[in-house]
């Protein structure tokens, strides 16, 4: 594993562009924190989304946080709740905490809609699986 942030980022980017899910998550983290790239929640959201769509629990948590705060994406409690829900069902315990902290700020209609989106959600198959 390369040592410097910039070096690591190059590796991850190459892997991420091949559809590697953890690499996509790592690039999201790099943009989220401004490690080796200029900080951009907008870019972070895009990369988290790619990993989250394939079921990466931590990417789902972090994307949920961006929706909760409205950083890099318009603030949207329904989407935030949905991603926390999905991450929780993937075993991310922090997602339960985040979801419970969010719920009191939502209307019942929003929670119902988020539950519906959660039920309807289907993971995007990783490209490797599609190629087989």
């Amino acid at each position, binding site marked *: 594993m390369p040592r410097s942030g910039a070096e690591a980022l190059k590796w991850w980017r190459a892997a991420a562009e091949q559809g590697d899910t953890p690499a996509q998550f790592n690039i999201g983290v790099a943009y989220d924190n401004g490690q080796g790239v200029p900080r951009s929640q*907008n870019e972070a959201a895009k990369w988290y989304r790619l990993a989250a769509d394939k079921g990466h629990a931590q990417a789902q948590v972090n994307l949920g946080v961006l929706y909760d705060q409205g*950083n890099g994406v318009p603030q949207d*409690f329904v989407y935030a709740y949905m991603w926390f829900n999905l991450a929780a069902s993937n075993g991310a315990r922090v997602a339960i905490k985040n979801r419970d902290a969010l719920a009191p700020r*939502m209307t019942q209609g929003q929670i119902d809609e988020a539950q519906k989106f959660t039920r309807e959600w289907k993971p995007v198959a990783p490209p490797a699986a599609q190629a087989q």
Partner: protein
Amino acid sequence: MKRACNAAVFLVIACLAAPAGAAPMDDAAAALRRGDYATALKVIRPLAEQGNAMAQFNLGVSYDQGWGVPQDAAEALKWYRLAADQGYSLAQQNLGDIYSSGRGVPQDFAQALKWYRLAADQGNAFAQNNLGLMHEKGQGVPQDIVRAHLWFNLSGAQGHEQGLKNRDRAGASMTREQIAEAQKLARGWKPAGK
């Protein structure tokens, strides 16, 4: 790049350097970087007169700021208007600023609203924030906190600090139902022409 350009409406350089392959504009940008406004204007003015929206915008900035020409609000307005009519979002934003502040023109909230809206619809984060403020204060439109939140939210999503602050400030006095409605509007929003 886009954010840097938006952030400094009167920094012509960043905006001039933006499109690739426009050789005369590259020369003008280089001249501007040296602070050589006279040379830059020699390039910009003929392009503006030929109808190039970016050149028109920059000529407007020159008159607005008095860079290489005597400051002239009427000339600034004229060139901004020509660029704005071609859909140039930064010119629309500056027209919004001019009309809302009444700088060199009678203050006109209806005009300000119109130009901010056109820029905001294209995704201009500054215009979105200012449009939010007009909805919040009821300037040129009926006061509407839900629509104010919508525009602040869209602005903040692009990292516009003021938009984020205004969204949270507005949100603090809104009901959960109002915020839910505003977020729903934001979810359905798409930039114009996309």
